[in-house]
């Protein structure tokens, strides 16, 4: 939607310096969610599994420093184009090909029209209180446009790192990706950090006709951190969107993936694994809005929960009246590895078109003893047998990563997690 606005950056520079400004925003959002129990069920229902008390106790301030970042080693081999966001501010841009336009949200000069048009077009902030906070309070981030017909050879890595430096900080990084017609790109988002902080990130994707984007995300925040992410896409006809998310970090994380399939024949596939241990709370929320006919959506999420971890999956597929010939598939599986874990799963379908094939499912269970025995009967120790079966379990989701190099990288990250957590977990459990 064209606008007369010349600047997107809210003039909150002075507000930023006011103590308590940011924390009051979060507090308000939480109150809004909780207060809605009786009046409007939408928020309460969408957040019913999240323990918001953890937020109430925080009094975050805005982060005011940045750091020089370097990509985690395993990703180095990908030879990608890197963009760094440190404490919410864009701090590094690799030299990019001419068919990519970049805009730094912290830039005080006139905002390009393509940014203004696309910004905020994928999501209704009224329905998403944390996205609303980001929209009010973001102080930086990046917008990128991949021009018509461009086929990117190298993947783009977007490294988002937050350093609390002994305080409790909140950052609101904003990312906008505009993929024009017939363009092809791979985007990898990596979230890291240290200390107690809230990373309230919003990534918007406006995906043009016939374009193809593969979007990978690794959430490896500090285990004391809070990660609230909104990943919202608006897809045009004949486009392909693949999303793969691997979550291993944060004390509390909520990864929300939402899409409007606004053209016909879109191929939309979102998959991922969440690996949680100690007392981590990991939440995956998905919403797919089938507006136009003949789109295919596919979803597979697998969770591995150890120690006292909590997993949540809320997935919804909406098929509107006009979206005939929709094919939708949604599956959430959770593997429970300890007596103290908890899983809440809500796979939901809302269908208003009759010529559709939609299915969804959910399974919850522990490792199959038959399989463990089979491995042991071949001489493999119980610990190793469990680790093998957990890896194999996650492997199914990793196989949805089309780019083989990127697939290997994510596999390494997942296996590292297994080695650090599964084996040790079992040793402690004594089984």
């Amino acid at each position, binding site marked *: 939607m064209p606008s007369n606005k010349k600047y997107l950056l809210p003039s909150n520079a002075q507000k930023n310096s006011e103590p308590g400004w940011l924390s009051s925003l979060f507090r308000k959002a939480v109150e809004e969610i909780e207060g809605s129990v*009786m009046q409007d*069920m939408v928020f309460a*229902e969408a957040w019913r599994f999240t323990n918001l008390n953890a937020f109430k106790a925080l009094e975050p301030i805005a982060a005011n420093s940045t750091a020089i970042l370097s990509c985690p080693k395993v990703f180095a081999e990908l030879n990608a184009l890197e963009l760094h966001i440190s404490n919410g501010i864009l701090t590094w841009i690799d030299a990019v090909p001419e068919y990519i336009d970049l805009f730094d949200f912290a830039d005080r000069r006139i905002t390009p029209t393509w940014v203004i048009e696309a910004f905020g077009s994928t999501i209704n902030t009224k329905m998403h209180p944390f996205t609303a906070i980001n929209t009010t309070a973001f102080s930086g981030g990046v917008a990128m446009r991949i021009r018509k017909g461009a086929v990117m050879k190298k993947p783009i890595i977007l490294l988002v790192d937050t350093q609390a430096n002994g305080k409790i900080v909140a950052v609101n990084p904003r990312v906008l990706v505009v993929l024009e017609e017939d363009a092809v790109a791979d985007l990898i988002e990596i979230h890291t950090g240290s200390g107690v902080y809230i990373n309230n990130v919003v990534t918007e994707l406006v995906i043009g006709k016939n374009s193809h984007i593969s979007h990978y995300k690794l959430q490896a925040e500090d285990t004391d951190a809070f990660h609230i992410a909104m990943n919202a896409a608006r897809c045009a006809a004949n486009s392909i969107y693949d999303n793969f998310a691997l979550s291993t970090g944060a004390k509390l994380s909520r990864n929300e993936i939402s899409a409007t399939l606004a053209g016909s024949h879109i191929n939309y596939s979102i998959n991922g694994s969440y690996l949680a241990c100690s007392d981590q709370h990991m939440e995956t929320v998905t919403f797919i809005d089938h507006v136009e006919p003949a789109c295919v959506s596919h979803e597979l999420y697998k969770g591995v929960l150890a120690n006292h971890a909590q997993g949540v999956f809320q997935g919804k597929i909406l098929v509107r*009246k006009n979206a*005939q010939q929709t094919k939708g598939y949604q599956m959430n599986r*959770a593997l*429970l*590895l*300890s*007596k103290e*874990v*908890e*899983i*809440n*799963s*809500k*796979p*939901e*379908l*809302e*269908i*208003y*078109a*009759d*010529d*559709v*094939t*939609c*299915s*969804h*499912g*959910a*399974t*919850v*269970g*522990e490792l199959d003893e038959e399989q463990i025995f089979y491995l042991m009967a071949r001489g493999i120790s119980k610990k190793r047998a469990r680790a093998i079966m957990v890896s194999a379990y996650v492997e199914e989701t990793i196989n949805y990563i089309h780019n083989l190099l990127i697939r290997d990288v994510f596999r390494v990250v997942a296996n590292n997690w297994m080695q650090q957590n599964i084996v040790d977990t079992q040793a402690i459990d004594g089984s």
Partner: protein
Amino acid sequence: MAATADTVRHVQEFTSRAYKHGFVTDICMDMAPKGLDESTIHFISNKKEEPDWLLEKRLEALNYWRLMKEPIWAKVSYPPIDYNDLYYYAAPSHKPKLNSLKEVPPELLLTYDKLGIPLKEQELLAGVVAVDAVFDSVSVATTYKKELEKHGIVFCSISEAVQNHSELTKRYLGSVVPAMDNFFACLNSAVFTDGSFVYIPKGVRCPIELSTYFRINAQNTGQFERTLIIADEGSYVSYLEGCTAPQRDENQLHAAVVELIALDNAEIKYSTVQNWYPGDENGNGGIYNFVTKRGVCRGKCAKISWTQVETGSAITWKYPSCILQGDGSVGEFYSVAITNNLQQADTGTKMIHLGKGTKSTIVSKGISAGHSNNTYRGLVRVGKRADLARNFTQCDSLLIGDKCGAHTVPYIESKNPSSRIEHEASASKISDDQLFYCRSRGLAAEDAVGLIVNGFCKEVMKELPMEFAVEAQKLIAISLEGSVG
């Protein structure tokens, strides 16, 4: 392909077909004054000559209810209900006491006859069903009582049970669905008028099917019946429930509560064929069916099985549930819900696994046609102590036409790693290939749809007792006559 114009026309044709149980019985009625306050409660309680403990319970519930808000989370919408503009008690004035079926007023006998529910014992289907007939607020007849008494089985109206079996009613009434459970259950707890009571003693297998037939007749009357079934250790009972109401332009409220208690090794099979008046094709009239049904498997290896065929009501809000408390207990829920025209159904179940080795099965089949909305809403919860709990859920939706909606909202919550929960769901339409195949073998479109829909529902239908299965099958065919997809 979406539904063809043909389909839509057929669906419309169906909608103009008459609801077959829409007649009104003209009989003198005894009514409580309109509205709801303490005096209404006293009126009902007085009429029934109830003991003080029950009156107190009712008043307590009324107080709770005044503080509660109507639930809005279900996917149904209706104009606000004025709870003060309803009659809370209506009874044929011939009452009070009937000693035998001979004393039932002939208008009533005729009513039940018309509904296909004979109240004459000798005419019952090979003598395998005993019937408690509830007309508006009161039970008018219970058949085969004597026969059942020989086995120590109590089958009577709840009002009678409160008088004659106060020990049991005092202990169990409200023990599964407490008054404050939810808005409608609370309202029921305050104003319930009648319903059925069943007690099966230890080790007794009830030799015949027990059945209650509910009929709403009076105008502007809410029906608030209350059913309580207790199956003592090692006993078995199969219970059937049927419902109809006359065709009226205004909506009528039906807020029932059903409580089931199964002790060690007991089994209760509860089947419902719900055919309340659904309203006309413009959504005028019809019953608001806001019902709380819950069973608890209190003992070891107890089993509660709910089977429902829901074809009627303007709005259905109903979640027959099982609390699997005893180790090794089993809960089942089999449901067919059909909505057409502007009907709205939000129905499903809750399976709460508390005991070790508890198992539950959920099979739900939703069929939406016309402009209706059909939602499956279910909860499977496994508590920490419920080692090796198992659940399997399957819910399938069938859409006929592109003006209706089918929704699935399952909640799966587990705190026990040794539990295994599987949920499968699908939504689809009747395929053109299936239809063509049937038609090319000479079936009319309507019959083909009936055939396919019945096939779609088969897993549920086979759970119904024989006597009901045939009726239910016909009902499905009638509900969907002409709906070609």
